């Protein structure tokens, strides 16, 4: 029983001088790490302030206020639509469309990928069709969706779902394909049936890819819903933005965008939490987006 994982900080069984040296080194390392973190945060704050200040300075001087608005007006406009409830009124519809489209697209993408994987020969047969559909600019389908499904919630949900479907499908397929033949063989020799191999090896192995697909499609679902709202609707944040823009109320446009941004960040945080809980076995670095 040669090598043992020995954790440094729990080892108190060292004599005086060495203990002193260890304490000093540990303190140094901690200080360096803290400094590095502080530097990063300072830079982030600096960049954000520079951006906002530049914006504020340029607005009305270099660029017409009508086109650019400015951070202060946007903050006011945002506050107003929060307080008078119009943001929440519109956001409700957009969130519902996004959520339904996301769930529909993700679950059908996942099921379709699993189906394609299980049926022998299906993957190569379907490949050209999938690539063709994937290459089609989905935004161009939005007018058709409106034509087919009217201006209610349905076309928004479907467009959002198509944005999600292909990415989840292709990611899942890629993940299913990464399983190691050696691992599968070992488990087969242990007596695993093909179904058990899929359930206990192939599928869990693909999960990091599936989750990555679920993560990158969150903004995509929102884009789908918003685009459909732009084209034809009488409610939703897309409508809010569109209406404000057509009346040259630029601050309100940005306020709507700010609302969407907050939604995406919240959804991202949700998926991250889900990921940590779901995939505790993946060795992970800290993700830049939390």
């Amino acid at each position, binding site marked *: 029983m*040669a090598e043992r994982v020995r954790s440094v900080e729990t080892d108190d069984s060292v004599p005086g001088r060495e203990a002193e040296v260890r304490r000093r080194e540990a303190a140094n390392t901690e200080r360096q790490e803290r400094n590095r973190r502080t530097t990063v945060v300072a830079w982030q704050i600096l960049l954000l302030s520079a951006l906002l200040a530049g914006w504020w300075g340029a607005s009305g001087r270099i660029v017409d206020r009508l086109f650019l608005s400015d951070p202060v007006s946007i903050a006011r406009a945002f506050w107003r639509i929060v307080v008078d409830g119009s943001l929440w009124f519109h956001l409700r519809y957009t969130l519902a469309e996004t959520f339904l489209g996301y769930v529909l697209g993700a679950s059908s993408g996942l099921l379709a990928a699993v189906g394609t994987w299980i049926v022998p020969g299906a993957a190569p047969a379907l490949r050209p069709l999938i690539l063709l559909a994937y290459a089609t600019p989905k935004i161009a389908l939005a007018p058709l969706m409106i034509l087919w499904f009217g201006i209610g919630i349905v076309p928004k949900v479907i467009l959002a779902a198509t944005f999600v479907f292909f990415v989840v499908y292709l990611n899942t397929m890629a993940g299913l394909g990464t399983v190691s033949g050696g691992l599968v063989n*070992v*488990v087969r020799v*242990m007596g*695993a049936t093909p179904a058990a191999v899929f359930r206990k090896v192939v599928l869990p192995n693909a999960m990091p890819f599936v989750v990555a697909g679920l993560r990158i499609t969150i903004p995509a679902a929102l884009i789908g819903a918003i685009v459909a709202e732009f084209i034809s609707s009488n409610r939703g944040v897309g409508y809010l933005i569109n209406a404000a823009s057509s009346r040259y109320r630029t601050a309100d446009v940005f306020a709507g965008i700010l609302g969407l941004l907050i939604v995406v960040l919240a959804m991202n945080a949700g998926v991250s939490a889900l990921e940590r809980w779901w995939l505790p076995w993946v060795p992970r670095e800290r993700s830049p987006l939390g």
Partner: protein
Amino acid sequence: MSRPAPGTHVTTTGSAPAPAESAFVLEARGVYKVFVTRGRAGRRVMTALRDVNLGVRPGEFLTLVGPSGCGKSTMLNLFAGLTEASDGTVLHDGRPIRGINTRGGYVTQDDNLLPWRTTLANVEIALELKGVPRVERRHKALAYLERVGLKGFEHHYPHELSGGMRKRVSIVRTLVDDSVNVILMDEPFGPLDAQTRLVLQDELLQLWQGSGRTIVFVTHDLVEAIALSDRIAVFTRAPGTIKEIRDVPIRRPRDVFHIHEAPGFVEVYDPLWNDLRAEISRGPEPSVG
């Protein structure tokens, strides 16, 4: 039991004739394996194994050595039922192997643990697949983990273990299944550092001794082969066939850390190396998939 002992095939050992009931655990009779691959230059047909006759005795530790690409691993895959012989017969306990041989344990060079399972769950999987009740499989798995010093690491994931620990887990998970009487090991210690390798060789011998299990082991390392084996089968270069089978008369229990000094070591090593050198120096080997 009424089956007559298969005695016609060749094992070139000088040991006493096998008593009637000691049929081989694993046996290859006139086995050929031909691979057909498709490359840029069209189809390539390659003979990996040519007329291999090999009997593995119950409870023995048999090692296959040979130049790389000589078909040693293919032989293990045939015993595991992962691939079928192109001609000839492969038998386990006297019965032809059809499909996957689930009474064999398979240990590969990569540890091939399931990264999403903890140490304990990785050891339990073979029992789980065979429907052993939860309490029983947990009990057995824990006992084996304790034997290899992994107590306290039951709930670690593979990426949190060292290479040697992962290897212990991958060995122990084949032993934990009582229905497995043959362990097939394909260069299991290849990726480990020299010290860990020796420690694991020692542990493997301790796990094997008295277990009644049969081990078929593949390695490039002649010293490892001598330290572990009862008999060593030397393969020719591809297409592989058995060139020689040599007994290792070093008494057990063996001290793998000082195996060079064991009486009889040199007497085994030199002829073995001569067998192998002849195969290696016969010009460049053809590349084998």
